[in-house]
């Protein structure tokens, strides 16, 4: 028995030793929310790790969040109405034909090093954003500007032909190809943000990717916050910028952006008080939060569509009736209520309803009877002899769940057996891009609030079409007719006609309108839900008196 005691003792002491070792400099265990509320630091769950902080290189939503804190464009949006509000430009005027914009810049806007922000900064920044060597994937956001596309593609070398003109230090004139009603909306996209020329030139060539100008200590911005720390895979810290022209309105002292790819981890961090705001929520937790803690769960329709692409180049799927049959046998109401459960709205059009006043006519519905009839007409009564068809999706819990449910619906209502196939993200992109699929899951988030961002992708050989679908009337409407019409109602009518063609032919099956879902700590105030999930950080504040609110 003696030796057992000895062993017990040895184990115990060693364990204690290790514990102290692991505990490190042990201090009180306050969570981020409590300390953050006290110090005015917001802890923000920010999805994947930011690749870069150069607005003319990055492509993702996490980068977008950080950059809207660090930089500011000519115009911002009111988070409640999404109407343009003054930012660096204090006012602007639009010419009669809608093609020329004149921006008056405010005189008190400065960079974080004290330099004034001038019209030259914008002209130079946009010049830089269009440099081919920079490899800016969002250069197309500038393409409404006259000749910018030709310049970006290297067709013209002379930037003075591009429609950007500095009238004086604080006046900028922009000339567009067409009256583009959503042009003001593009100005707070990061690809249109200004960058500080002397800083960039200090650390490298203007069109050099990944020079060190975006590192903490080097970064010079003009936004409400400045970059303090950037630890890869850990967090990005920004602090309030006292030089910012509207600094008086900024209530937060800083924001910590936590890159968290794993949504389950993010939810746990939220629950243990490490985050004020999550970027997402695991699909299975939505119902629980809805039932037990509805005040923490924030959901709002999001300007995006979850849909399936159909490869119209395959013989059996080139038959419009087959495509319609597949679409009409998906019960998206039951799917959103029983599987995704996040309050998503079933989609019967591609453009989300009421996109800045535009609602397409719903051309199809859930109608298994009609679907069966159509399939029989196409030569597959009760799914007999239906060729082997695969449903492709990129690996993810929610895509899998949706696919499993839809696979069963097709089997139940049409009698067809669809095989599921998941691939990792890059392989999936490759398969879809090469048309190497039968039916493929897809999602599309609008770049701006206008039906055009949903419809111009389906033109013949459009870069994001990938279905092989093509319709001359559709192309004419979207490419030729609609862009030239300055009147909104007339333009929408043409767009609706185009969308009706799309929904009649069904190279795609809309499934549901996205929903932005997040968990928000009650102490975070000032969030305004909107369909772009757009956040203006200077409006946010923290209420320390609510730190202790029980979120379990």
């Amino acid at each position, binding site marked *: 028995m003696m030796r057992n005691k000895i062993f017990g003792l*040895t184990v115990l002491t060693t364990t204690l030793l*290790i*514990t102290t070792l692991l505990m490190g400099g042990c201090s009180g265990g306050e969570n981020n929310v409590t300390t953050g509320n006290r110090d005015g630091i917001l802890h923000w769950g920010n999805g994947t790790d930011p690749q870069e902080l150069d607005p003319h290189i990055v492509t993702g939503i996490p980068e977008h969040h950080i950059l809207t804190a660090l930089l500011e464009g000519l115009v911002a949006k009111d988070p409640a109405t999404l109407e343009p509000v003054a930012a660096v430009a204090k006012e602007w005027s639009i010419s009669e034909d809608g093609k020329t914009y004149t921006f008056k810049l405010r005189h008190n806007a400065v960079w974080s090093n004290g330099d004034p922000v001038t019209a030259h900064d914008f002209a130079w920044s946009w010049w830089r954003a269009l440099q*081919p060597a920079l490899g800016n994937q969002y250069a197309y956001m500038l393409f409404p500007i006259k000749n910018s596309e030709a310049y970006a593609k*290297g067709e013209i070398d002379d930037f003075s032909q591009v429609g950007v003109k500095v009238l004086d230090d604080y006046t900028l004139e922009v000339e567009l190809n067409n009256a583009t009603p959503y042009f003001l909306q593009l100005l707070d996209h990061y690809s249109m943000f200004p960058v500080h020329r002397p800083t960039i030139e200090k650390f490298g060539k203007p069109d050099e990717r*990944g020079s060190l100008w975006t590192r903490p200590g080097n970064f010079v911005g003009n936004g409400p916050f400045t970059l303090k720390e950037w630890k890869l895979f850990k967090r990005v810290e920004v602090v309030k910028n006292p030089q910012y022209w509207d600094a008086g309105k900024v209530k937060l002292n800083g924001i910590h952006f936590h890159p968290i790819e*794993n949504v389950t981890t993010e939810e746990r961090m939220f629950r243990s008080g490490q985050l004020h705001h999550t970027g997402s929520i695991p699909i299975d937790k939505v119902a629980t939060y809805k039932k037990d803690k509805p005040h923490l769960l924030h959901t709002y329709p999001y300007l995006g569509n979850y849909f399936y692409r159909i490869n119209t180049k395959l013989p059996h799927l080139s038959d419009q009736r087959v495509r319609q049959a597949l679409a009409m046998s998906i019960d998206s109401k039951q799917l959103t209520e029983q599987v995704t459960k996040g309050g998503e709205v079933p989609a019967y059009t591609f453009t989300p309803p009421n996109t800045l006043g535009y609602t397409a006519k719903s051309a199809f519905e859930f109608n298994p009877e009609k679907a069966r009839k159509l399939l029989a007409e196409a030569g597959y009564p009760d799914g007999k002899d239906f060729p082997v068809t695969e449903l492709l999706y990129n690996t993810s819990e929610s895509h899998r769940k949706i696919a499993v449910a839809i696979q069963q619906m097709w089997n139940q209502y049409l009698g067809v057996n669809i095989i599921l196939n998941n691939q990792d993200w890059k392989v999936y992109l490759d398969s879809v891009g090469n048309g190497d699929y039968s039916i493929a899951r897809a999602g599309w988030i609008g770049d701006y609030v206008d039906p055009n961002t949903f419809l111009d992708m389906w033109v013949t050989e459009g*870069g994001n079409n990938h279905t092989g679908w093509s319709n001359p009337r559709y192309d004419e409407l979207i490419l030729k007719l609609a862009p030239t019409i300055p009147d909104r109602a007339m333009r929408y009518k043409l767009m609706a006609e185009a969308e009706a063609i799309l929904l009649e032919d069904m190279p795609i099956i809309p499934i549901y309108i996205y929903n932005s879902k997040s968990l928000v700590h009650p102490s975070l105030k000032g969030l305004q839900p909107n369909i772009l999930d757009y956040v203006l950080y200077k409006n946010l504040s923290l209420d320390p008196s609510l730190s202790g609110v029980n979120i379990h």
Partner: protein
Amino acid sequence: MFRFIVSRLLQAIPVLLVVITATFFLVRAAPGGPFSAEKTVAPEVIKALEAQYKLDQPVWQQYLSYLNDLAHGDFGPSFRYPGRSVDELIAGGLPITAELAFYAMLVAIIIGVSAGVLAALKPNTPQDYVPMSAAMIGICMPSFLMGPLLVLIFGIWLEWLPVSGWGDLPGDKILPAITLGSGYAAFLARLSRGGMLEVMSQDYIRTARAKGLPEWVVVLKHGLRGGLIPVIAFLGPAFAGLLSGSFVVETIFQIPGLGRFYVQAAFNRDYTMILGTTVFFATLIVLFNLLSDIIAVWINPKLRHQLREGK
């Protein structure tokens, strides 16, 4: 012994060369390039990017210039993180993963060896079955289950420990270390039980007992010394395994370590990063396997003899 080590180190050069070459061409053959994205990237942008990273050159030329850079200690720039070199990324993640692996190993040794030794002292009694069964649970529980379970119990329900992070909050290293270490504890338990059983029946232990030494002296001083040799031989390769296998734990606990870089790089088709981490881990594997072989030779006089004869 010296000749053995030198010859093995020389053999490492062709091994690494083959690994580099195979990986270099494998990653380029895998579908999906580093710059593909959901919204189709304009061809002229792709072209500019490929030119920037020299992907527009013939593959053999890329290969040669990669080897040349590597010979100068330069792993190249990361494709995913513009402005970050692979050297910088590895240097950032390595200390964290190494620390995690070290703590995990400690946990594994403490739990595993005590379970194994306890079991070996009274084989085929409850003192044997209970710790060994507990150790087996460690094998049953993959880290993707063990991690969330520990977090739920100690982080959320009991609120004793942080649910994520590394070095941010007091105690946030405990759960990751236990999660990563527990799988190895089971192996160590089996090893040390076997080793101790073997040793405790040896003559010199009987002699020690006959001398009237207290039992704990016999066990700790004489027993452990022989009984743990197999454990020591296991530690080398296991440590290499811990370093490269920490991806799941690093993801669950939000730890910015090398394991995550390694897997993320593969998902992102970050060619240089895949190559860099692979070369790095390959070197570790070669070294640790060598280490374990050296220990195996060292504890086995027969093998040592063989080596001296020059085979």
